[in-house]
């Protein structure tokens, strides 16, 4: 059993729940365009692009007037109470589990715990404490597995070597992790960003700054695992099948490397019913491809980026930049052990 396995178990439970039917109906309604109402579908379109899971819809709802001004001719109409409640129930589940993750981190490194509050920068008023109804055993299992995350050991060891890590101001740790992830996610995904490369060359092992860096890398991995977890739960709760990229839609593997920042693949695909062309980045998918008779790739991947071109002479084409997700739901595989 791993964090990924226990998350899958919860996903399967959610997919079969009444909640997923309710959520899917609301999301479908908000995303559906029809001829009678020219504004239909706009709400869902705007919300989807915020990639904040359930909170995307609540955020757009809270700011719909401002958005209507900014994004004319979009004319968003607010959610009704029932719809708000459905999104809040889902969001509250993520908050509850994220808080458990945060509390576990707090026990080891209190000044870093808020790094796992992944929605803290989004200011949305949540009205209710309602939560998706589910047996507590699912959450217990996830918590148990989260505790085995390799980052915890890295942090513990670093603190043993350098107890002063506990005194680093919270803001500096948050900034360190954010900067690191920003650097990693804004490049072309196949290169180690210049600043990270320089940092590695400059610092001798055992150096004070190296210990801090190791902690920051471990925290970044914990944050990624939390984000991937949230996304998987969200995709399951809305009863969405993960996109499958396989031999029925991939026509080219542009690049595939395994390096310091994990396993990255760039693919060219022809969208089909298994991977639709409305797929957004920062979500999860399966890659299941037989490259040769003796070489297959079959795993969960994070869509780091994608783009589509439509309808011209050469047909519809999608490009995907994918990062492999490990059993700890981390796509910077072993980055915390470097």
């Amino acid at each position, binding site marked *: 059993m791993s964090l990924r396995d226990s998350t899958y178990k919860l996903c399967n439970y959610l997919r079969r729940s009444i909640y997923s039917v309710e959520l899917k109906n609301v999301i479908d309604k908000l995303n559906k365009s029809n001829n009678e109402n020219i504004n239909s579908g706009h709400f869902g379109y705007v919300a989807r692009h915020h990639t904040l899971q359930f909170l995307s819809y609540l955020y757009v709802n809270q700011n719909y007037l401002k958005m209507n001004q900014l994004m004319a001719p979009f004319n968003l109409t607010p959610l009704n109470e029932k719809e708000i409640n459905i999104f809040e129930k889902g969001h509250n589940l993520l908050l509850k589990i994220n808080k458990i993750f945060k509390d576990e981190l707090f026990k080891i490194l209190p000044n870093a715990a808020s790094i796992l509050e992944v929605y803290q920068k989004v200011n949305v008023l949540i009205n209710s404490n309602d939560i998706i109804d589910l047996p507590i055993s699912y959450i217990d299992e996830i918590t148990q597995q989260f505790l085995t995350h390799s980052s915890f050991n890295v942090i513990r060891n670093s603190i043993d070597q350098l107890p002063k890590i506990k005194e680093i101001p919270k803001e500096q740790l948050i900034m360190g992790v954010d900067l690191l992830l920003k650097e990693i996610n804004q490049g072309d995904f196949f290169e180690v960003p210049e600043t990270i490369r320089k940092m590695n060359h400059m610092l001798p092992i055992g150096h004070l700054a190296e210990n801090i860096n190791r902690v920051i890398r471990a925290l970044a991995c914990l944050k990624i695992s939390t984000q991937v977890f949230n996304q998987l739960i969200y995709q399951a709760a809305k009863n969405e099948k993960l996109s499958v990229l396989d031999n029925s839609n*991939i*026509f080219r593997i*542009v690049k595939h490397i395994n390096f310091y920042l994990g396993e990255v693949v760039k693919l060219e695909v022809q969208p089909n019913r298994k991977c639709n062309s409305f797929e957004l980045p920062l979500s999860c998918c399966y890659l299941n491809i037989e*490259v040769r008779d003796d070489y297959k790739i079959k795993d969960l991947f994070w869509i780091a980026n994608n783009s589509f071109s439509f*309808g011209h*002479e050469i*047909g519809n084409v999608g490009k995907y930049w994918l990062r492999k997700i490990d059993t700890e739901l981390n796509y910077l595989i072993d980055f915390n052990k470097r």
Partner: protein
Amino acid sequence: MIKKIISENPIFDIWQMILHYSYPNNIIKYYKQNKREYEIDIIDIVVNSLLQANEFFQVSNEVSLNILPMVLYYGATNLFNGLLTLISGKELPIKTHGLKLIMTENEKKGIGPLKIQILNPNNGALSNFLNKIDPNTQNIDGQVFSFAELLGSIPSLKYDFENCYEELKPNCIPVEKVKINDSDIERISFNELTRFENKNIEIFRNIKNFEDNYLEPQITNNYFVLRKKIKSKEIGIFDEFGKKYFQLGINKSKRIIHLPQPILFLICLYSLSNLARYYPKFWNPFINNDSTGERQIIEKFLHISKRYLPNLLLNVLNNKILIFIRSFEEEIIIKRNDEEKELKELIRKEINKILKIK
């Protein structure tokens, strides 16, 4: 697998490669290299068949249409027998031609409607050759084909076929190859499908192994756009110039039959030689007084047989598609690998423009 061979004289080079096996030592070497067993008696069969085949093909350049089909058919059967015996390592159990021309009053109106029936699956030359070329082939014992169905499956004759038989659909579709950036696509122009009532992806279900090797075709305004799957094999057929086509299966009441290209040539040559040999009342007026224009496509078919049938059989021997060309065609590649950089540059310029204006 495709191999391009630059050749000033393809016919000469093809026969050089074939006649390599008219030397017993080279035959023995072939089995050693391929680590295969063989019956010693086959050496004479191979040598004799290939030498006779070569002479028949050489003679075919000197004879008139009166006997040309017979000369080519004899050459072809010898060539099939020589090379396929070489491949199999044992004598093929051939006692008959293995096919029959069905001539009724109605079919005497032209060559296109002629019917040919496949017979003798065990001892017929045709079935034996077919099994050696494609061991997984469908059983076609007793199957009847029209001459036009077979002729329409030969890529070099696609346009002649459409001109000659206004009511019939050709069984091969030309494929255009386009290179964009670093990826290759193939496409089929709707202009090539004027004889097909429905221009939908159903057409592709008639192509052998299409779904295993291509993603679902995409339909644009003028083309079917085709992309190969990651683990794909070449399933196209090629004309003598290396132009790619897809061969559509021949639709028979309950099944679609895919005949390999060399077999199509052999059946057509058999039919024509049979006409020339046994039906003078048909053949003589056809070659001397044909007013329909059908004679032209038959002449072209015979001409292509001389050049391309030996090439097709050489492909079978080598398990490769050998394309003999006079020079390498210059490939047009549209390369846009700096897309990202160009985009960044454009954005930078636009921002600078805005900043300067402000």
